[in-house]
């Protein structure tokens, strides 16, 4: 690492105050150069250091605001009506307010990952020591932390080195959050610039978290052949005691598995998980079983299968304790960020807590000691399971039908459903004994149970849905490739050229949450479509799980069919939410490992490279959270477009290009210094698609880049045209904007396209060495 704390450690000290043992403290920083790459212009950038680059992007991709509320209610001046051209009492405009809310969301997301990373690093240092080396890929990886190197200009080598990176991230998020205070930043574009900064910081913190846990816990190290693990309700052996973990921070789950291992119980208990903790524990041990994305929480708890629930942090239903109480399942909260109102029993003996759970005198505990949690969870599950009567609600089909008969067809359930599912009709049919419609609804249900909240008859609608779909639930047993972590340098070298030249048509990253508009199958279908088209398909988190919960006619999941290599036609599960940093990291490494651009503290140049040359697109089809907002923001600052599903318009603004504004689509040709029209590539930076079909066409289009060779552009156009014809029903109307020279035209469609070009008055242009940075132009001119 380039800079390092001075650490002083005193084992034992006699003072007038008494005896001090194991005192450690750090003072100042000293430069310790072991990385010879010259420092770039923006190491540890402040919140405005990259403002110029942001404004370059925002000039092309202007915000289109879609307020989710007409008012501002953030201070006691308010509520302020911001409709029309009214300003709030503080002077803020509606567009400023929307950017402000987007920044708040991005800050929440970045703070969440940063706090997670801090908690993880602190825990791992306490367990393994601060000198534990960072090793996310063994000999396969030289650039171990591309985001950290790029943003901070340092090369972390040990767990302890990550603390300085987190100090920086925390400071930045603090400043960004302060910018949202009343009477601070109000200019929409400056607020948007800060959104991009929050996103960049988010990727740094995600990288910290994942390389720390990969290194310390020996998770798969950039392994394309990471184990195939079980996913799905049906994969659980319900004859055994069952532990459920929910959340994102894996140490308690690791301790559960370690305790089982140490006590020869590994085969005796089922350790199951929901959300990213599940992904990460399956990286730690292939014996762990994943139930599914966040939307599976209610249905799994209500199944009565888990004997104990351990929650850590993020995306956990805040009513998890209420639901667990109904099933008489004890709950352990393990994070200071999610105490659930439970008594702090961190210092109580394990025996006492287990006894209280067994005799029912306690239904939950807050325990800030992962090792103790591991012991208590295992012992409780072992002791409680033989006696606990697992009871799902309703208990039988007949009971469910009786419940359905209470329905008055008021339709409030449908009017509460985010996907406008036809619940009243389905309940009516179910009451007549026909479960078909309700079972169909299961396929699109996101498990939010807003329907139940709205029901005036207190019908447990979600439970009826899972009852009607019981056969489907039992049948949920698939294989998922455990998260492999980073991308190897050798893989980057192999695909870097074809990607930059456009001969691999693109990298498509399916990421984010499970708030799908039409069920998870759509996501799997998209991933398969692009893997078959020989794009590189990456995935992570809930999206990675969803892709795995699909099987073909032969009963195989996509992970059993497509390789896990970062190569054309691969489906690459990098891991959990925090593993998204490996996807941005891969794009960054194309610039450094393949193209030999200096990485160190050199954000703008690398982002310019990625934006103009790396045909990557993120797809967050079910994006729900603030973390999804900050993850997307980090991709935007690298110039990588992100597509969201229709619910994504609720993020309040898009970043849209105008293909009809020719003046927006000029770049500098680094070879000649000339400004060259390159067409709208990529056309948008943040865009919502209405349907899966539209998203697929968008993906193909947004993979085009100014640097594509003619061969590469012809290939990308072939996919774009083919998908547009198949799904939209006709030739796209904007082909003329993407053809630069005659050689770009796909050979099989030459006559037809030439006719279109002629009608549009198309003129040939040149293929530049593209950059949006004026400095790049002058530096590279002869």
């Amino acid at each position, binding site marked *: 690492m380039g800079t390092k704390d001075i650490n002083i450690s005193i084992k034992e000290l006699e003072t007038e105050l008494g005896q001090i043992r194991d005192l450690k403290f750090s003072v100042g920083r000293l430069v310790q150069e072991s990385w010879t790459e010259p420092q770039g212009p923006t190491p540890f950038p402040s919140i405005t250091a990259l403002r110029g680059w942001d404004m370059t992007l925002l000039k092309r991709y202007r915000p*289109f*605001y*879609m*307020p*989710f*509320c*007409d*008012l501002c209610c953030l201070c006691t001046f308010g509520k302020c*009506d*911001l*409709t*029309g*051209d009214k300003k709030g009492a503080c002077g803020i405009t*509606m*567009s400023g307010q929307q950017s402000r809310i987007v920044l708040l969301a991005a800050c929440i997301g970045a703070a969440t990952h940063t706090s997670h990373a801090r908690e993880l690093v602190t825990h791992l240092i306490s367990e393994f020591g601060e000198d534990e080396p960072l090793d996310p890929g063994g000999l396969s990886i030289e650039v171990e932390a591309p985001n950290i190197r790029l943003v901070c200009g340092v090369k972390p080598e040990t767990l302890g080195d990550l603390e300085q990176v987190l100090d920086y991230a925390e400071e930045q998020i603090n400043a960004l959050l302060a910018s949202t205070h009343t009477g601070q930043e109000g200019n929409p574009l400056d607020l948007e610039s800060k959104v991009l900064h929050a996103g960049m910081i988010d990727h740094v913190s995600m990288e910290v978290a994942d390389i720390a846990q990969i290194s310390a816990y020996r998770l798969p190290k950039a392994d394309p052949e990471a184990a195939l693990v079980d996913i799905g309700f049906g994969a659980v052996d319900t004859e055994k005691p069952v532990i459920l973990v929910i959340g994102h921070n894996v140490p308690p789950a690791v301790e559960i598995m370690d305790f089982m291992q140490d006590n020869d119980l590994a085969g005796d208990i089922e350790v199951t998980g929901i959300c990213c903790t599940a992904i990460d524990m399956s990286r730690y041990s292939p014996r762990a079983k994943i139930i599914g994305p966040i939307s599976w929480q209610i249905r799994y708890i209500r199944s009565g299968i888990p004997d104990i629930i351990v929650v850590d942090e993020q995306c956990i239903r805040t009513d998890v304790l209420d639901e667990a109480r109904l099933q008489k399942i004890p709950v352990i909260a393990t994070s200071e960020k999610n105490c659930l109102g439970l008594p702090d029993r961190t210092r109580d003996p394990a025996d006492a807590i287990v006894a209280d759970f067994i005799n029912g005198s306690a239904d939950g505990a807050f325990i800030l000691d992962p090792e103790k949690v591991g012991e208590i969870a295992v012992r409780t599950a072992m002791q409680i399971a033989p006696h606990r009567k697992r009871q799902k609600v309703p208990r039988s089909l007949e009971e469910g039908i009786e419940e359905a008969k209470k329905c008055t067809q008021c339709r*409030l359930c449908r*009017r*509460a459903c*985010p996907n*406008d599912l036809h619940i009243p009709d389905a309940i009516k049919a179910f009451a007549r004994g026909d479960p078909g419609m309700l079972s169909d609804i299961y396929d699109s249900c996101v498990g939010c149970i807003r329907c139940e909240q*709205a029901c005036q008859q207190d019908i447990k609608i979600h439970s009826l849905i899972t009852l009607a779909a019981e056969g489907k639930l039992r049948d949920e047993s698939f294989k998922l490739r455990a998260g492999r972590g980073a991308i190897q340098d050798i893989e980057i070298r192999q695909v870097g050229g074809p990607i930059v030249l456009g001969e691999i048509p693109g990298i498509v990253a399916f990421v984010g949450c499970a708030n799908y*508009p039409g069920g998870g199958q759509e996501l799997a279908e998209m991933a398969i479509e692009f893997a078959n088209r020989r794009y590189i398909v990456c995935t992570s988190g809930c999206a990675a799980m969803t892709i795995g919960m699909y099987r073909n006619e032969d009963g195989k999941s996509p992970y059993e069919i497509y390789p896990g290599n970062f190569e054309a036609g691969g489906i690459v599960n990098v891991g959990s939410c925090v593993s998204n940093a490996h996807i941005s990291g891969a794009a960054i490494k194309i610039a450094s490992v393949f193209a030999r651009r200096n990485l160190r503290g050199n954000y703008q140049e690398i982002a310019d490279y990625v934006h103009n040359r790396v045909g990557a697109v993120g797809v967050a089809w079910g994006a729900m959270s603030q973390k999804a907002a900050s993850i997307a923001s980090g991709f935007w600052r690298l110039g990588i477009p992100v597509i969201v599903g*229709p*619910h994504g*318009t*609720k993020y*309040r603004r*898009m970043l*849209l290009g*105008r293909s*009809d504004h020719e003046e927006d689509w000029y770049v500098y040709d680094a070879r000649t210094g000339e400004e060259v029209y390159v067409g709208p590539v990529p056309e*948008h930076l943040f*865009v*919502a*698609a*209405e*349907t899966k*079909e*539209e998203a697929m066409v*968008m993906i193909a289009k947004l993979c085009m880049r100014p640097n594509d060779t003619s061969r590469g552009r012809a290939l990308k156009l072939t996919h774009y045209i083919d998908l547009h014809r198949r*799904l*939209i*029903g*006709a030739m*796209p*109307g904007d082909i003329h904007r993407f053809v630069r020279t005659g050689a770009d035209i796909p050979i099989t469609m030459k006559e037809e396209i030439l006719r279109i070009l002629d009608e549009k008055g198309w003129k040939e242009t040149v293929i530049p060495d593209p950059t949006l940075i004026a400095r790049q132009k002058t530096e590279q001119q002869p």
Partner: protein
Amino acid sequence: MSPESWLTAEVAGPKKASVITKPEIADAMIKRAKRPVLVVGNIATEIDLEDRKLIDYLIDLAKRCQIKVVATAHTNAAFLERDFAPDAVMSAVDIANRLADPDWKGVDGEGAHDLAIFVGLPYQMAWTILSGLKHFAPHLKTISLDNVYQPNARWSFSNISIKDWIMNLKSIIGNQET
């Protein structure tokens, strides 16, 4: 006939849509518009109205009123199956972004649109998009022709039955016959 958002929680702010209580209102707005545009989302291909789909009614409306049509998502394919070619194919947020620009020359390049009629988009997507236009396109009037109340449109039906919806659509189309 209550002007409540179809999705109960998607409440309106201080500025909310006037209710189209009778088809003559929509009819008058369309007649008065110099450059109307009809934005049709994919749900128009799914909804059955008697023995036809919603999209069939919309084709009738577009033909008889000579309204320019923008097909969002994959709706274009359903139009083409019916031998009707929309004037433009673009995403819902893309057309909204252009409509918010008073200098945009419209789908035919002949001038800004003064009325945008939305129908067939997912409810919440239409809600947010119409909010964008409500706030940032003061030069544009908007109508929602879905059978659910869209508070961010300038004019919208309330939450009406399929039967009333059909009656209204037929009336609007009929009134527009020349």
